[in-house]
């Protein structure tokens, strides 16, 4: 009697385990969980060393990496030293080292598509997703209309000024120099010029 019950129990258990294992292996079912599983041998998985963006118990501010000393010169590129209202000085200082070759324009297009398009849209006319697609609930503020990059004012100002706006910001626009290095910003300037030419042709 006990033997037959045990037999049936084993049969049900084995078939259940087998079915679940097969379904899991082929991705038919998926289990989501919020907690991390136990680790069998965790000694080498979690070493005592600091990794990027990892919390540390050693320093007071609990950051594992120290900031560079003041006036440190970066190895690649340079730190932008002007603030947003010093555009007259910027026009004297900044000079575009790049020429609008195919490669530079391709890089500029890629950077424009990733960083500028959500606000300024693909054609640079300032009706991006942030205005057209965002659904606002009651009592929530939207984003004020971004600038049209193909308007006359932007056409007349110099390359240096556009570079200055990119690296120091203007009005609500945050500077992008913390994400884009100098070359990328100059490539962006060339691409903006290209967008302005293209919008001329369509008219």
């Amino acid at each position: 009697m006990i033997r037959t019950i045990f037999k049936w129990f084993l049969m049900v258990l084995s078939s259940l385990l087998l079915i679940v294992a097969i379904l899991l292996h082929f991705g038919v079912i998926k289990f989501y969980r919020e907690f991390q599983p136990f680790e069998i041998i965790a000694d080498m998985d979690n070493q005592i060393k600091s990794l990027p963006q990892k919390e540390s118990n050693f320093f007071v501010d609990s950051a594992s990496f120290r900031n560079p000393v003041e006036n440190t010169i970066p190895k690649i590129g340079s730190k932008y030293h002007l603030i947003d209202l010093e555009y007259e000085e910027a026009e004297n200082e900044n000079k575009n080292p790049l020429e609008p070759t195919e490669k530079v324009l391709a890089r500029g297009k890629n950077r424009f598509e990733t960083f500028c398009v959500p606000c300024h849209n693909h054609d640079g006319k300032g009706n991006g997703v942030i205005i057209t697609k965002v659904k606002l609930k009651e009592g929530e503020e939207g984003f004020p209309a971004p600038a049209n990059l193909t308007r006359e004012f932007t056409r007349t100002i110099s390359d240096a000024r556009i570079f200055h706006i990119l690296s120091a910001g203007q009005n609500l626009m945050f500077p992008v120099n913390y994400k884009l290095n100098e070359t990328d910003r100059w490539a962006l300037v060339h691409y903006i010029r290209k967008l302005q030419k293209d919008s001329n042709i369509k008219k």
Partner: protein
Amino acid sequence: MADSKSVKNTIYFWLLWIIITIAGFYLLYDYVIKNTGFMPAQPIQFSHKVHSGDFGMKCLSCHTSAENSAYSEIPTTYSCMVCHIALKNTSDLIKPLNESFDSLKPIIWNRVYRVPDFAKFNHKVHINSLIDCSTCHGEVEKMEKVYQFRPITMSWCIDCHRYPEKYAIPARDISGIFSADINLDSLNLYKKKYYSIINPPYGMWLSDVYESEYLKNIVYPRVYSRGNENCSVCHH
């Protein structure tokens, strides 16, 4: 002389035990080592589906450092505030962002993907080789909450390095990967170094996959020292 019935019974029991152990170990392996479906709670209810799927924001616009460093960053509060300084700034969901922006204290997000400390993974190399983010991370633009899509195991890495035509996905539009050569000559900010080693290091293994037609879009590591099965590519 053994009874034929009892012999059948013992064989039957042994079979059941074997099935239970194998299936049980597989389940344990799936849970502990593969760890797919790990979906930790986050301090802010952030949706990749809305930001990336609906609004078409590229992966690299927030995780920028994946292009030029080994580590792909979790975006700072500053990069969220580029839009949310005005957009929905009064909403309850943005409250922790505002607090962190005012007090200069970073938001501590919970990590989903974790490579063990004895191995290393270089995002820059993979992205400059035009391998899409979704090869490992899945289609994040369709996920409401991010979960671990692929197992971060040694077999997963090596399988993909041996047979990339089965697993690797070429760069898609949504990820924002720059498809041309990243060297902009006039400033020489990025310089690639090539090593020529006549005798390849131990563990090297070159497959016929190099000539596969599928890989024409992918710049595959053809340099000797960066071979796909060199131990020191992934281990220190």
